[in-house]
């Protein structure tokens, strides 16, 4: 776990105030978005998740933290059924989005992924123009009737992703020509272009420099007003900075989930305590 030893005390001191200031919704007003019940998952013979029970709330950021290989990314990919595409992957249990079982027979994963967008670890724009990158999803889902509609959606998505001002003059240039941070914001614009309800982020800043990371974090802060955001991160400072709730995974089990303030100041489990203070991981 690459936590800076010097930085840790600062985080612990600053985290509570920062989070309290950002906390938008009081606990009693929270609106349930995802409910995962008894989720077990196997890759072939190897079990990756053990009886995970987790509630995720709307219009807030939930951070999934834990050491490498603890199953946090696997769990994230369960939420939009990206694990379906992996051969030999098997899941039991029940995940409900707004009360609806997303693994039910009549749920089309393609439709689900339009409701639950995803941003990946490494920026992965399509090798197409910036415009085409954002326009692709609305187009395949048939959301726009005219070219003007499509242009409006692209511009709005880029604006919400905080990228429009930088690229407005070169929408027809390839998206792969942007810098890493810009590419990641392009991927965020692409993910929100179909108006999803949930945004899953799998270590979105791990390939970015600190300045680009700061921009993405500001953006996440902004986006949580309209989306339910679930973020997997290796950086505890990041979890403390952007999230309202934090779930700590260890060896495929969900050890503890609570308000971020509590996880970082007064965790209930000693393993959580050890991890957030950098004693292992």
């Amino acid at each position: 776990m690459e936590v800076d030893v010097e930085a840790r005390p600062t985080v612990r001191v600053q985290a509570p105030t920062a989070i309290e200031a950002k906390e938008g919704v009081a606990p009693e007003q929270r609106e349930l978005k995802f409910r995962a019940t008894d989720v077990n998952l196997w890759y072939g013979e190897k079990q990756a998740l053990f009886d995970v029970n987790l509630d995720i709330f709307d219009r807030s950021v939930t951070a999934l933290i834990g050491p490498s290989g603890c199953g946090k990314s696997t769990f994230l990919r369960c939420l939009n059924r990206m694990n379906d595409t992996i051969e030999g992957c098997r899941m039991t249990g029940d995940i409900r989005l707004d009360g609806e079982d997303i693994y039910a027979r009549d749920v089309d994963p393609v439709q689900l992924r339009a409701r639950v967008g995803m941003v990946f670890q490494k920026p992965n724009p399509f090798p197409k123009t910036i415009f085409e990158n954002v326009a692709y999803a609305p187009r395949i889902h048939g959301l726009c009737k005219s070219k003007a509609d499509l242009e409006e959606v692209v511009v709005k998505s880029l604006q919400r992703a905080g990228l429009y001002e930088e690229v407005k003059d070169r929408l027809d240039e390839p998206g792969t020509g942007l810098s890493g941070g810009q590419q990641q914001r392009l991927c965020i614009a692409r993910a929100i272009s179909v108006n999803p309800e949930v945004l899953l982020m799998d270590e979105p800043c791990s390939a970015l420099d600190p300045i680009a990371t700061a921009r993405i974090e500001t953006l996440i802060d902004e986006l949580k007003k309209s989306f339910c955001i679930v973020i997997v991160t290796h950086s505890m400072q990041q979890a403390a900075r952007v999230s309202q709730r934090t779930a700590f995974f260890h060896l495929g089990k969900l050890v503890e989930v609570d308000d971020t303030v509590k996880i970082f100041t007064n965790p209930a489990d000693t393993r959580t305590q050890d991890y957030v203070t950098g004693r292992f991981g």
Partner: protein
Amino acid sequence: MTDIAASSLPVFATKAEISKRLRQRHAAERRFRAYGIAALLFGLIFLVVLFTSIIGKGWTAFLQTSVHVPIYFDPAEINPSGNPADRDELMRADYSKLARDALFKALNVGADDKKERRAAGALLSRGVDIQLRNAVLADPSLIGQTRAEWLLASDNVDAFLKGSIDRETPPDRRPLSDQQLTWIDQLAAKDMIAKRFNTGLFVNGASSDPETAGLGVALIGSAYMMLIVILLSVPLGVAAAVYLEEFAPKSKWSDIIEVNINNLAAVPSIVFGLLGLAIFIGFLGLPRSASLVGGLVLSLMTLPTIIIATRAAIKSVPPSIREAALGVGASKMQVITHHIVPLTVPGILTGMIIGLVRAIGETAPLLMIGMVAFVVDYPKTPLSPATALPVQIYMWATAAERGFIERTAGATIVLLLFLVVMNSAAVYLRQKFERKW
């Protein structure tokens, strides 16, 4: 712990030994580089030898000797009925007589000396008949006029002017008599004989006279086969590769199929010819010598190459692109058609052109299905009898006449040029469609 970490490791070699070893390592590198250059030079020398030998032998095939004499298109001979619309009559007329008469006049050969007349007539190709007939059929108003025409000379005259027949050879051992040589000299002095660009090489069909033999039928046959190979093996190959890579469940069966496709690419081409003979001609009853059958056989041969190239290209598409597309809700089919296949176009094109080039240069399977045939007329459909470029080369190489030697080399130049153009196209297309991610 810290003591060991802090202390430096012992060194057992002296400085001189280390620097000696370093020198040896550099020497090994230099040696390896020299081997590489030697290998490259070796290959280059053979290439140069090949090209100089073929071009040296073959370039004369692109020139053909013709005689330029004024011809009187005698209406009494061509069109006794006086009706130029009667094409049958125009077809039947004896045009070689017109040509011979014109030549006799030019050479002042007497009307009675039959022996001389025969010797002078032998200077002209048998193909002048068709040459003049085509001229008249194209423009019947020629009848009754006198116009100078370029008439094909016989292959002996051609060979003499190209230097293959030596004037110093005793008359009984060369195909041209002293009298004939004198006539050629007379014609040359009056600028009535010249080597001109040989369009017939590209236009004419098969002929037993070298001067009128051409690659026309072979070029059309090869074009038909190329078309069939592209139309059949590209869609089939790409579809098979996409299915195997994206949809096929991993099982013993898909493993067996994969191994067999790889084996198929290594099967000798004559085996495909036998297969084509048995299935397309024997079982399905398709005609022999048809470019359709040739195309089908070559498609079978090209299919594994295209499948393997396409699968390799699909495998090289980064998984992040696939995830990105799935992540925004693209269906599997959309991921393939919108993202995977466009990114594999350069790979598919390369595989296609490599396969095609191999197919176009292939001779053995075409021999098996009877494409080695004497075809004079252009094949109107892929079902008509035809030959192919490499088969034509093979047939000319086995012919006895002197003129076919240069034609064999000439046709080889055409084939090589064709392959060079195709390969350049492959490189160009690959670079054009290459996308970075």
